């Protein structure tokens, strides 16, 4: 490990040789971490490397005694027995899945479990006063009485931070804070972190978005396979994304996209004048007069800001599984088809991999083999009786060809890492043998190495003459992968760019402006 002595900032937190074992698995092996007071310290590593485990040890989720090693915080060895203990000491962790109660107001959430009371009665006047103050500090202009469910994810994140500020936080830990945020919300959050740093609050951030880390972090500790590989000083070492990736995967990644020469055929899938209304609000269109087509062997990108209507468009085409169908036509191989249900869509050769793997894509109670065949049970059934031998064979075959890391196909999908779960979902859809596969944020929450593999799978599908639609919030991903990119803004398709003419700037322009004269 490299240590830097150029700075003389006092160390606020030191984790010394932390080892954490689960039955049969060593999740962390002698990991050490030094965080200086007032810095933003990033922790990078692939999924399953042990980042979150380390943070859980720090925050007391894994109590003192369940791990080896010492946590030295403010020059004292700490023995946190639960989250409450670490929070009392000023270490607050904000998880990717926010711990807010949707029905309660911003103010009630901020003071939840920490209500200002006077003889046992909550002093709401004081709570309101303080929450207004806290909201101003995080730059959130909302009435404290607004219900959490009425504000977006980006603002909810800010409420979480306000909540932690209320607990007089000294070290703020953010686990993938921007994973669900759009660009402008992400930027606001990052600015806020820099602002908090200016006020002396130390932050630890876990993120897969390396460009953000490069932008705000002072030091980076890289964890790989449960071991701390190195700690980089961003300014002194001149760290860039490639350098971080090299540390994370243990080798330099030549290219982030596999080589691929597209073999593009004829148009086989076309959607014309597609109009869909919001599921609850009938007179609000979420897809406005959209037209698009896909050619054989082509990877088509859908770019748009979060909420622009990308997912809505894809899901409404996929058997009307979203919203109220208003009008529009779908053509497969030049013939008009009506896809009124998901079942019909699958029969017509469509597949849809959802952006929300855990709540829409997987039954977390299932194992790999059951999941793999779940969208095409008919294929392995005779007279409606499932052939469990074939099921095993099919699942095993996909496990090998997609290199899913699991001890066997009987492993529960809930136990897999994000990348491997996504491979199982891909296997499920590949087994339906779709002509057109729609992938909604296929690499969300997936680490660099697995991303590369998933890009490879997507390109393979295209090489087999299938059409692939990729919806993504990450423009570099779309630019690297797609042969053609449609841009969507407020439910309408605002343009289409070929691979050659597309750039982050040109896409962003189309993604944020209404269609010019059609």
């Amino acid at each position, binding site marked *: 490990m490299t240590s830097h002595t150029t700075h003389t900032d006092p160390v606020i937190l030191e984790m010394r040789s932390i080892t954490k074992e689960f039955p049969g698995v060593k999740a962390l092996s002698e990991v050490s971490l030094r965080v200086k007071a007032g810095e933003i310290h990033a922790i990078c590593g692939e999924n399953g490397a042990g980042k*979150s485990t380390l943070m859980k040890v720090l925050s007391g989720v894994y109590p003192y005694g369940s791990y080896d090693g010492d946590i030295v915080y403010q020059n004292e060895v700490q023995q946190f027995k639960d989250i409450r203990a670490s929070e009392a000491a000023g270490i607050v962790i904000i998880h990717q899945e926010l711990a807010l109660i949707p029905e309660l107001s911003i103010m009630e959430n901020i003071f939840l479990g920490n209500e200002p009371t006077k003889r046992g009665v909550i002093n709401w006047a004081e709570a309101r006063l303080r929450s207004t103050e806290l909201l101003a500090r995080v730059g959130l202009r909302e009435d404290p009485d607004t219900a959490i469910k009425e504000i977006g994810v980006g603002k909810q994140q800010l409420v979480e931070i306000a909540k932690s500020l209320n607990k007089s936080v000294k070290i703020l830990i953010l686990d993938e804070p921007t994973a669900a945020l759009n660009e402008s919300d992400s930027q606001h959050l990052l600015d806020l972190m820099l602002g908090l740093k200016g006020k002396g609050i130390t932050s630890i951030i876990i993120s897969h978005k390396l460009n953000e880390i490069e932008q705000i972090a002072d030091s980076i500790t890289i964890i790989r396979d449960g071991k701390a590989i190195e700690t980089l000083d961003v300014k002194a070492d001149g760290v860039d994304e490639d350098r971080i990736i090299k540390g994370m995967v243990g080798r330099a990644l030549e290219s982030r996209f596999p080589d691929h020469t597209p073999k593009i055929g004829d148009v086989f899938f076309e959607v014309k004048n597609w109009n869909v209304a919001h599921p609850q609000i009938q007179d609000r269109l979420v897809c406005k007069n959209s037209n698009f087509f896909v050619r054989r062997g082509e990877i088509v990108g859908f770019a748009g800001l979060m909420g622009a209507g990308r997912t809505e468009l894809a899901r409404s085409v996929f058997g009307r599984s979203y919203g109220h169908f208003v009008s529009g036509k779908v053509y497969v191989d030049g013939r008009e088809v009506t896809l009124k249900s998901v079942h019909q869509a699958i029969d017509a050769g469509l597949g849809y991999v959802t952006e929300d793997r855990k709540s829409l894509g997987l039954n977390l*109670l299932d194992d790999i083999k*059951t999941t793999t065949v779940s969208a095409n049970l008919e294929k392995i059934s005779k007279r409606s009786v*499932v052939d469990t031998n074939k099921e095993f064979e099919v699942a095993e075959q996909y496990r090998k060809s997609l290199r899913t890391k699991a001890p066997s196909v009987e492993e529960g999908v809930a136990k897999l890492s994000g990348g491997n779960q996504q491979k199982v979902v891909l296997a499920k859809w590949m087994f339906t043998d779709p002509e057109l596969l729609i992938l909604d944020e296929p690499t969300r929450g997936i680490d660099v190495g697995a991303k590369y593999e998933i890009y490879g799978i997507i390109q393979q599908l295209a090489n087999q003459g299938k059409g692939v639609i990729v919806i993504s919030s990450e423009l570099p991903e779309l630019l690297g992968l797609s042969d053609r990119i449609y841009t969507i803004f407020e439910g309408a398709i605002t343009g289409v760019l070929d691979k050659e003419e597309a750039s982050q700037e040109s896409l962003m322009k189309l993604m944020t402006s209404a269609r010019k004269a059609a």
Partner: protein
Amino acid sequence: MNALKKLFGGDTRQFGMIFALVALIVLFQWLTGGITLTPGNVINLFNGNSYILILAIGMVLVIIAGHIDLSVGSVAAFVGMVVAIAMREWHIPWFLAILLGLGLGALIGAWQGMWTAYVGIPAFIVTLAGMLIFRGAQQFVGQSNSIPVPREFQYIGAGYLPEIGPATGYNNLTLLLGLAGVAFVIYSEVRRRRTAKALGAEVSETWVSVLRLVLICAAILYATYLFATGRPGTSFPIPGLILAVMVLIYGFVSSKTVVGRHVYAVGGNRHAAELSGVKSKKINFLVMMNMSIIAGLAGMIFVARSTSAGPSDGTGWELDAIAAVFIGGAAVTGGVGTVIGSIIGGLVMAVLNNGLQLLSVGADWQSMIKGLVLLVAVAIDVYNKSQGRASIIGLMMKNFNRPSGAPGTPLQPDEVTSTKETISREA
């Protein structure tokens, strides 16, 4: 412990229930001075509980799909009453009456399924309404009277396998049935091992299979002996036969057919199932309809056994069936549960009932004890789950080698999931 676990498969919960069942039987056998395992008592136990066990089969599917059915007692009573009236007043032959009962059950099920699946009202509400509606309907059509049923009809609830063939001193058909059961168990185990080997999947050690077969076969043969040596005129009861057939059919349907898979899929994650092309409304409809058909069957068996349909038939059955299913390992949130587990759960309750009655424990104490057993059984399950992966099972396994099927890179717990779970528990 590890060996025991191997013996009964990976499902510790199921293993726990089998163990509890055996322990209960042994306990009562000892406390009652050997009365529990006499032919008369075992036959009695089956006759007196078969309709609850049959209800549990339908109920487990409803619960796997993520619903509940509170109306089964009322539906059973209503169907039983209508069938009794049909035979007495309209002089319908008994076999047509059975068909009528099943048809009526299907109709009621379609009604409840429609509200649940297509209108989208929670099954709890729909069947709570059904419970009131059909209880009232039963009293309305029966005028709160007892309606006797003809002797031929009583056979399905109180009949026994007939005496056929040479006089062996045992009931021959019961013996045959027992032997068929043994043959089936051995055959399926051999087949299971062979295909697993052919596919290269994990195969348990030979001694595990053999010992398991020996234990199961011994249990079947002992039961056969008990049923075949009852007092003259009794043997394996007909309701038990109906139950056995239904366990086979529904066990198969739930685990090996497309519809069965879809029931688990809808209960496990309805949205994911829908986006995989599963017609979840249809599944919900079928599950609710099936439950009412089974409730109708249970109602008829009960009426046949008690020789008449009365106004208070079926009271509280829904709760017994639901308790059996939850003791048998199903999850309130859906997606988890097995037919055989529910039968075991039902038998635990039945043996408890029976044993306490033999010991002349009052109904007050019986009710309290049963309630506590349900609570403890589910509490153990919840505790197991809340311990997460590094749980009791993990601790028990700690001193042993890791499961042999896990070569290569060890898997680490999914970071995000476990964090979320931990947090939600903390909150």
